């Protein structure tokens, strides 16, 4: 076996001693990564779709041709026309405007939900990875308990107690996505826990919060951000799903879920409503998935397979 090829990395490290222009090389590496990103059609498609999603949601009041709740009874159940490019619903509201405003709800849930669960998951994961064994076991148990519970059932149970509202949707979204971040953060923290630089910090007298937030967090957060990009579509579809079931956003507020729900009732007479409500959901999911995968491949090529 001694005649088999060795680890090629060893030969690659031969010229490592001359790191005089290391700064410059870091810049070049960054440029190289950007180039790789920009030449990947999936990455670019993902980026375009994501930008489109953000822009349409943010500027919805200005882009939307009509007030999303303004009723135009004579024009009700209109098919796609020049006046209403995505048709109108049974109350004569412009579906296109409602989709744009529904995107605002999706963005709101996605932004707050993902950032909150990312932060909580990160902190809990680092505590589980760095803290004592019993705490680790306890947190892991909690993560598994939450994960094993179907989100929709949990939502139905909660709504039965509190009544439907956007806040409940948000809370459910945050609660059910914490474990994915927590587990990733815990694994990464465990790997760092016994490294020499963490021991070095301890020998200086650094407090545990300092070690966690100054030294472990910067090394753990990268994979979490990529995970977050891939979680956005999950969150958006949870919101749409709950709203579709009528336990999310309350009428008359527009959401992609409620548009689908209302369209579903009249699917025989006005199929375009379901189609129009479904397209943004599909595009957003595709966009964030492409973007997340491209980011993952660029920053961590080893993770590219087998997921």
């Amino acid at each position, binding site marked *: 076996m001694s*005649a088999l090829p060795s680890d090629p990395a060893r030969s*690659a490290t031969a010229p*490592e001693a001359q790191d005089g222009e*290391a700064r410059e090389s*870091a810049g070049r590496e960054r440029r190289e990564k950007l180039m790789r990103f920009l030449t990947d059609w999936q990455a670019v498609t993902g980026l375009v779709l994501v930008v489109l999603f953000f822009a349409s949601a943010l500027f919805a009041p200005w882009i939307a041709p009509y007030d999303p709740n303004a009723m135009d009874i004579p024009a009700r159940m209109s098919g796609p026309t020049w006046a209403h490019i995505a048709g109108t619903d049974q109350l004569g509201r412009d579906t296109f405007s409602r989709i744009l405003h529904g995107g605002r709800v999706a963005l709101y849930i996605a932004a707050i939900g993902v950032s909150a669960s990312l932060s909580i998951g990160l902190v809990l994961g680092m505590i589980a990875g760095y803290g004592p064994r019993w705490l680790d076991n306890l947190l892991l148990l909690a993560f598994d308990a939450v994960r094993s519970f179907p989100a929709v059932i949990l939502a139905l149970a909660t709504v039965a107690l509190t009544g439907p509202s956007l806040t409940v949707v948000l809370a459910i979204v945050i609660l059910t996505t914490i474990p994915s971040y927590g587990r990733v953060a815990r694994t990464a923290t465990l790997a760092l826990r016994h490294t020499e630089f963490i021991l070095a910090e301890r020998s200086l007298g650094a407090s545990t919060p300092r070690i966690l937030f100054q030294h472990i967090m910067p090394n753990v957060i990268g994979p979490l951000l990529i995970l977050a990009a891939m979680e956005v579509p999950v969150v958006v579809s949870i919101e749409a799903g709950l709203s579709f079931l009528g336990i999310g956003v309350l009428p008359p507020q527009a959401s992609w879920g409620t548009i689908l729900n209302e369209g579903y009732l009249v699917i025989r007479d006005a199929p375009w409503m379901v189609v129009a409500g479904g397209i943004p959901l599909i595009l957003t999911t595709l966009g964030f998935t492409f973007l997340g995968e491209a980011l993952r491949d660029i920053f961590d090529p080893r993770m590219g397979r087998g997921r």
Partner: protein
Amino acid sequence: MKDMDTHMTDETLLNIDALSLEFRTNRGQVKALRDISFPVKKGRILGIVGESGSGKSTVLWSILGLLAGNAKVTAGRVDYGDRDLLTLDAEALRALRGEEVSVVFQDPMTSQIPVLPYARQMSDILYRRAMSEADKRAAAVDMLRRVGIPDPESRVDAYPHQFSGGMRQRAGIAMSMLTGPNLLLADEPTTALDVTMEAQMIGLMRGLRDDFDTTIVVVSHNLGLIAEMCDDVVVMYAGEVVETGEVHDIFHNARHPYTRALLECDPARIADVSRKLPVIPGDIPDLTKPLAGCIFASRCQKAMPACATKAPPLVERGTGVARCHLLEGPLADASWPPPASVSTVARDDGAAAPLPANAGEPLLEVRDLNVQFRTMGALKARIRGVARPFVDAVLDVSLDIRPGETLALVGESGSGKTTLGRTILNLQAAAGGSVRFDGTEIGNMAERRFKPLRRDMAMMFQDPTGSLSPRKSVRALITEPLLIHGAEGRDLDAEAERLADMVRLPRGFLSRYPHELSGGQARRVGVARALALNPRLIVADEPTAGLDVSVQGEILNLMADLQAEHGLSYLIITHNLPVVRHIADRIAIMYLGRIVEDGPAAEVFANPAHPYTRALVEGVPQPDPDRRRPPSAAIEGEVPSLLRRPKGCDFATRCPLARDACRPAKPEHRHITPDRRHACLFPLTDTQDNKNKTETP
């Protein structure tokens, strides 16, 4: 056994001719090898020596055609017999590797297949042979026996993780010799091993060469290994061969200023004990830039203006070649090379640390310290009926460090020296005993109460780069101790610059990140962090690990200067005895968690009392081919696992002088003089002691 005459043959087995190679990297083309030429003579051991970045391993991999994908050979040939290895196709190369040329890797842990037993791995190597499985197994057993694996008939079925480090490397050598190769390539074969194992490996490889008439090429940065093992030497620097020759010529009659400087920097070759070690100033040149003149000119003490622009001539000499203007041509200097007694490298002798009187109260007092590691959970131990589910990593250790003193803690891997250092700093819980710092008991103190003490006690860690938080700039790293311990009202930028100046790190480096630093630079950052709070004691774990010979002197000189300036005490944890001799006031030798001997450094070196100390002192390969030891000098065996600690003297299993009295109980520590102790029932000093008594009543 062939007689020695076969090694004197002039037949060339492998000839490297004008080999040039480039690596394509982000920074541009790195001209990693330039015009490398040297012959490998049949039946001899050739050593390629150089520091990191010299391209010595790259030469090895280009012989085998195992270069990284970004490498490109731009010129030259590697002739093996009548074939140029660089032009062979993949299939022909594969046929050559293993059968005719094979390799011993640096780290046997990562170069052996963890999921296959040796029997399988070794019979796989013989896949081209028309042999029965039973014959292949017999061949494997024979070869394992030859390399000194005890009980090979059953050990052949073991997996790599069941072998200790030394046995694994022996097995690695057995695998590479199995096909009876003509040429054996060894890449730093002993770097991952302890001193006592290193001596055994050198003996083994020389023995194999004699028995099988194999030609060996060994790559190493270790001058001792090269001197002890090789017949011919090639000295490389920054991708060029600067000098070649027979081993005696290189070590006693070096012609190139770099060879000369490298030899003078090796602490093992410096006879007089001095706190200051010589260094080669400067850094290896950037190989992406256009190169002109002599590659070593920028660091050479003898450099002349023309050296930087005019390529030096290749001068034939007795047994090899050297590439230097001083030897031939218009710039030749008849007085070069000077006699061996003349120093040719920078050596600042100034202010050689007038040490404060060693009298006074000890700063650190460790008494009967014990550290235990759990081997299984409490419940599991109860179920299995194990009374004591612990191993003793540190056993009854007592030591003192006085202000301004350097104590070196020396031991092989597994001796518990790092654990002891961490326990003193309260990073590891003690199971018993006491640690007093400045008169206060600090053992197992709660972290909250211990924190103020961390100002006074700092630690330097083994891995220069790995002990720095990777996402922090150097500025943030060296000011962090100040932030942790309250830096109100301090100008952090000014502090960062002050500390950088103190450790002689250019200020421009403050905005760099750890991965952008070389080993020596990262080590300086570690020193700066340790010094930031003006501590009184620094625990330094292998301060020279991973540093080149020319750089380790700089770090040790820096530490000595800072000690003189600030009255620091050092606890230096190391396995590197040649370095210890120059920097330590006192040394303590550890074996299996116990201190077997301690005392003033000079006395312990000159006159070891414990057989283990003697084995360590004599185990260091001497960088002098005239002082080669007979193969029998190496002590047998390896450090046993802590789980199998002998009942009596821990060293009894390997001790050449062990008697029955050594085995029933652990020997107590006994004093020879008030500050010299040992734990041996039959110390080596007994006879000399009596002599001393009669001489000086």
